[in-house]
C-alpha cells in the first residue's frame, strides 16, 4: 500500500489534538484511511439529544476526491436515506481539495441542523417533511431516541 500522504497524517493529528466540538473522528487501527466518526445532534434540532455514528473513508485519490461518509445510526432526515447515505453538495459536486475531513463533518452537522427537503435523498421523508413538518420533526426526535446514543448529561 502506498504510504499515507502527509496531508492525511496531518489532518488526523489535528482532529485528535484540536477536535471540533461535538464531533469525534478516529482512524481505524488497521486502516488509517477509515475513520469512525460521531456527531452530536445540533441543539434546537430534532436530533439534539442523540450522538450519531458515522463511518468515513478517504479514497486513494483523496484529497482530489471527496471522502466517503455514511451514517451508521438510523436517522429520520430528508437528505439521508435508509442506508445512511448523505446528500450533501460538498461531498459530491462541490468538493474541493481545499476541504478537509473536519470541514466535511461540520457540513454534515449543519445539515442536521437545517434539513433541505427540496433536494431530497429519502423521498418519503422529504414529502413528509414538506407536508407536515411538525409531525416529521416529532418522528425524527422519536427515531433519535430510538436509535441514537444518548448524550451524556
Amino acid at each position: 500500500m502506498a504510504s499515507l500522504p502527509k496531508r492525511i497524517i496531518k489532518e488526523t493529528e489535528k482532529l485528535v489534538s484540536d477536535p471540533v466540538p461535538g464531533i469525534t473522528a478516529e482512524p481505524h487501527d488497521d486502516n488509517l484511511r477509515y475513520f469512525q466518526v460521531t456527531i452530536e445532534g445540533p441543539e434546537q434540532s430534532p436530533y439534539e439529544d442523540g450522538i450519531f455514528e458515522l463511518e468515513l473513508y478517504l479514497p486513494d485519490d483523496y484529497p482530489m476526491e471527496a471522502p466517503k461518509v455514511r451514517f451508521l445510526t438510523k436517522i429520520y432526515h430528508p437528505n439521508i436515506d435508509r442506508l445512511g447515505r448523505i446528500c450533501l453538495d460538498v461531498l459530491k459536486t462541490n468538493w474541493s481539495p481545499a476541504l478537509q475531513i473536519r470541514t466535511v463533518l461540520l457540513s454534515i452537522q449543519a445539515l442536521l441542523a437545517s434539513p433541505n427537503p427540496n433536494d431530497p435523498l429519502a423521498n418519503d421523508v422529504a414529502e413528509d417533511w414538506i407536508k407536515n413538518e411538525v409531525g416529521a420533526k416529532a418522528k425524527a426526535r422519536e427515531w433519535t431516541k430510538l436509535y441514537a446514543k444518548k448524550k451524556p448529561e
Partner: protein
Amino acid sequence: MSDVKQEERKRFFNDDLDTSETSLNFKSENKESFLFSNSHNDDDILSVSDNSEGEKDTSILPVNEEIREDDQDQFIGELLRIIPEMPTSISIKLNEKFGSKKEGLCLALSHYFDHYKENSTSNIPSSPNQVNSHSDTSSSVLSPSPSHVKKRNNYAFRNQNRLEDKTTWKRFIGALQVTGMATRPTVRPLKYGSQLKLKRSVEEISAAKVYDSRGRKKASMASLVRIFDSQYNREIGRVPEDIAQILYPLLNSNEIGFEVTLIFCDNKRLSIGDSFILQLDCFLTSIIFEESSSDGQSFTKRRRTEREIKREKDNKNFGRSLAETDEELENRSKRLALLKLFDKLKLKPILDEQKAIERHKIELSSDPEIIDIDDDNDDDDDNDDIRPGQAAKARDNLWDTQHEEETMNLNQLKTFYKAAQSSESLKNLPETEPSRDIFKLELRNYQKQGLTWMLRREQEFAKTASDKGASETDANVINPLWKQFKWPTDMSWAAQKTQNDHLNLEDDIFFYANLHSGEFSLTKPVLKTMIKGGILSDEMGLGKTIAAYSLILSCPCDSDIDRTPYDVESTDIPDDVSSTFKTSSQNNKKPYASKTTLIVVPMSLLTQWSNEFMKANNSPDMYHEVYYGGNVSSLKTLLTKTKNPPTVVLTTYGIVQNEWTKHFKGRMIDEDVTVSSGLFSVNFYRIVIDEGHNIRNRMTVTSKAVMDLQAKCKWVLTGTPIINRLDDLYSLVKFLELDPWRQINYWKTFVSTPFENKNYKQAFDVVNAILEPVLLRRTKQMKDKDGKPLVELPPKEVVIKRLPFSKAQDLLYKFLLDKAEITVKSGIARGDLLKKYSTILVHILRLRQVCCHPGLIGTQDENDEDLSKNNKLVTEQTVELDSLIRVASERYDNSFSKEELEKMMRNLKVKYPDNKSFQTLECSICTAEPIDIDKVLFTECGHSFCEKCLFEYIEFQKGKNLCLKCPNCRKPIDACRLLTLGPQNSTSENLEFRPYSPASESSKITALVKELQLLQDSSAGEQVVIFSQFSTYLDILEKELTHAFPKDVAKVYKFDGRLSLKERTNVLADFAAKDYSRQKILLLSLKAGGVGLNLTCASHAYMMDPWWSPSMEDQAIDRLHRIGQTNSVKVTRFIIQNSIEEKMLRIQEKKRTIGEAMDADEDERRKRRIEEIQMLFE
C-alpha cells in the same frame, strides 16, 4: 577417355588448326625431327629417349589402342627407370596388378606411393626436380591435353649460362603457354623445342613514359616485349598484351628468370602475323631472395618519412598523390607484375601448413601440370588485346579445395577478438600468484592466469627461466604480410630431366613472399613482437585495474637494468620515423626510470586507481605518487636520482596532453627537443594506459602526446579496443610500437583498404595476426577450466518504461517534428540529405531534448558527439529557437491579455505586498506551509498552491471531465492562466510575479519522481543512479528532484564533466556511504561517468534518455553491474511513446544485431547514419 581428349584437343587447337586430325598427323610427322633434336645437352640420352618413347606410348594409347602391347619387361623397366630404388619384387607385383591395364603405369606408381611409400620414405626424393622426373610419366598419361604430352615427349636441358654471375640458383615456379605472334617472317621453320629469348624492344625507356602517375601503363606493352631467337639473335615475334604486361617490368631484373621454348609452330616458316606457341617457364632466382634476406634496400626504399605520411593523410589518394620517381614506379610495376604472374601461374598462398605438407607428400606421386592461360578465368580489366587463350583448361582441383569462403559474416568483428583468444589456450595458461608480501589482495583464477600472460609478455619468465613456454607465444606466427607458397614441382622445359644439383633445396618445400612489397624469403618471416607489453582487454568489471597492479607489484622494476645498463631503445626494432619524433640517440639521453611505472588514467578514475593501489600494495617500500604536473618539483630527479622512487606514478590524460603541448607544440617535427622536466623527460620502465580507447583517434593531441611517452614496457587496458571502426586499433598498435603495423601506410594497405573494399577476410586475418600475440581478452561469459563462469554476478533486469508526453512536450514535439520532417523530406526528395546532415542532426537533437524536457531546447550539450562540430549551428539558431519555443507556448501566453495580466498582478501585489507575505503561503491541497517559493502557483483569484498539487488537481478534474474551480473559492481557474514567482534574483530582494508556463514539465521527471517515491516507501536508504547524456538535463533533474523530496528523504548528487577532481572524489565517496535514513540519488552524466567508475553500492539505475549506441548504455549499466555488486540490479529506461526515442531503440536493436563496429569508414558511417535518419522519420 578418348572422347574427352578429342574434345579438349579440339578446344586447344581450334585457333590454330582446322581439325584435331591434323594435329595428330602433325605430331606423328614431326616426331622424328624433334625427338632427337637437342639431345646434345643431355647426359642421359638413352633414358630420356626411352622415357619419352614410353610416354608416347601411353599417351597415344587411348587414341590408338592397338599400339599398346602388354610387354611385361617394358613395364617393369619403365617402373624402375622412374624409381630406380624400387625393389624388383615390388615392380613385379605392380606389373601383375597394373601391367595390363590402360593406364597401368600411372596406377602402378600411385599404388606404389600409397602402399610402399613407408618402406621407402628415405628414398623419396624431396627435390621437386627429382620428383618431376618420376611423376613425369604418369602425368602425361593423365594429362588430357595433347600439347602437354608433346612437351613431355622432349627431354630437357638446362642452360646455366644464361644466369647472371650473381645468380647462384633459380627455381621453377610455374610455366605458361603463350601464343606468340610473328613479327618477322622466318625463312626456315622454327624448330620444336628451340630456345628463344625475351627482350625489351627498347632497352632504356623511362618508366614515366610507360606508366602514368597512378602506375597504370600508358603504352601498349606488347610492343615493348619481343621474342628473340637466341641462336641467331634476331627478333621473331611478340607476346600478347597481358603477358607483355607481366613480362615487361620483370625482364630487366634478374629476380625472375624466364625461359622460353617453342613448342608449336604449324607452318614450315612463319610469315608476319602467324602464331606459334611457346612455353614460358618462370623461375625465381636467388637474387630475389638475397635482396630480402638482407632486409635492406628494398625495404628502406619503401619506407616513408613521417612528413610524407602526413601529407598522405591530407590526401585521399593515399600514396599516389606523391609524384613517384622512376625508380619507385618501376618497383611498383614490378610488384604488380609479380602479383599478376603469381595469379597466372596459380601460385596461391598456403593457408594451412600442416595440410600443405601432407598434400605435398601426396603430390609427389600425383600429377603436376602446366597451367595454360585460361581466358575465362581472367579477371583483370586490361586484357584488351589478349589473343584467345589456348583453352585446355588447367585442372586444378587442388586450388578449388582451397577456395575459402570469401563472404564474411558481419558479426565477425564482434566475435573476432573473442576468437583471437581461443578459450582453450586461455584455460591452459598457468596461474601465477603474486607474493603475499607485496600484494595484499586475493586474485581470482583468471586474474592469476592473466598475470602469467602479462609476465610472459614482458618476458620476465625468460629472465628467471622458470617457464619455458615463455618465448613460444610469438615464435611461430608468420608475419601476415607474408604468404607462404609451396615450390611447385619443376616442370620447366629444361628441368624435366636435369637435376638441380648445384643447390641443395631438399628441405625447402616452401618459400615466402610478401606480394605487397615484392620481398621474398626462403625462411619463415616470423612476426616480430619485440615490444614488451600488450593489450589487456578483459571485459568491463573483470578487474583490469587489479590485474595491472598485480603485474606492477610483482615486477616493480626492471630486473635487466643491472645486466644491460641502459640500452632499452637499442633492443627496439629499427627505429621508425612514424612513431616518435626523436631519434634513437635522443632517446638514449633520457634517463631511465627503471623502477617506475607510469599509469595514465582518465581523470574520473584517478582516485580509484590511487585507492586501489593502497588496497593492493602490501610492501612498505613501494608507494605511489599522483602527478598533477606541478606538485612534483622535479619528476626526473625523483624517478632517476633518488634511492627509492615511487613504484607507480599516476597521472591523467589531460596532464600528459598539457605537458606535451607545452613542450612540442609549434615546433618542427624533426627539431630536436630536449625535455628537461616532466613526464617526457624520462624513459619509464613501464607505462599503463587505462581506458586505452581514449587514444583511438590518432589525430587528437592526447593521442599524440601519449604516443610520445617512452617506456620499455607498454600496456593498454581497455574493455572496448574497438569502439567504432577497425582503425581504432591502429592507435593502440602504434602506441605499442608493433612493427610494421605502426607505420600508417602498412596499416592502411593491409587493414583499412581491404576493409573498405569489403575484403573483410583479409582485414580480419591481418588484425587477428597482429593482435593474437599481444591481446588478452576475457569476457564475463567465459568459462574457466572447471566450466564455471569467470564471474558470477547477481541478475540484472532492464525494464523499459514507455511514457506519454506531457501536454507541453507534446505540443512542442509536434511542432519540431513538423519542421524536421520538412527538412528531411525535402532533403530526400532533392537527394542532398548529406548536405543537410548537420541541420538534421540539430533537428534530431531537439526532438530528443523535447522528449527529456522542453527546457533543454536551445542548450548545447558537450556530450553530444554528433554536434560537437556543429556547435555553431546550435548557437546560431538560438534566436530562431527562442521564437520557436514562444510559438509553441503561445497558446499559454495568449490566454492572458496584457491588461488582464497587469490587473491580476496588481491584485496579487495587494494581497502579497512584500516578500514576507510569501513566507507564509499555504497550499490548501497538501496543507503544506509555507509553500516553497520556487514551486508556488497563484490562481487568478489570488490563491496559492504548490505547483505539484495544483496540477494534480487539474489533471484529476480533467480526467473526470469536471470543471476547474479554485479549490479555495470555487472561482473558475485555467491551467493556462496561472502565475508564479519570478526567478530568485540574488541582487534584488523582491520577487516578481510572472505568468506560469507549464512547459517546464516533463513526463519523464514525473514518472521518475513516482518511481523514486515508491522505492523510498519500499526500501529505505537505497542508492540510486540516474543517467542522462544531457548535462543540462541533469541540472533540471537536480532542481526538480530536490524540490520533489525534502532533504531528509533524499539527497541528490550530481556528477558530470564540470566537476573538479576533488569534487568528483567527494561526491563519489559521499554517495557510496550507506545511509539508511534517506535515499541517495546520483545524477550521472553518461559520458563523464559512463566508464571506469565503480558504483556497486547502488542497485537501481534509471536511464533518462536513450543513446545511439547500445554499448554506451551497457557500459553505464555495468558501473553498477560489476564485480562487487551483491544485489540484483534493476535498470529502468524511460522512453517516450511514439517519439523519436522509440525509433532510437529500434536503431539500437539493429546495431546490436549487425554490430555497429562495422561502420568502417567515415563515409560508410555517414551512409549508415542517413539510413538511420530515414528510419527516424519514416
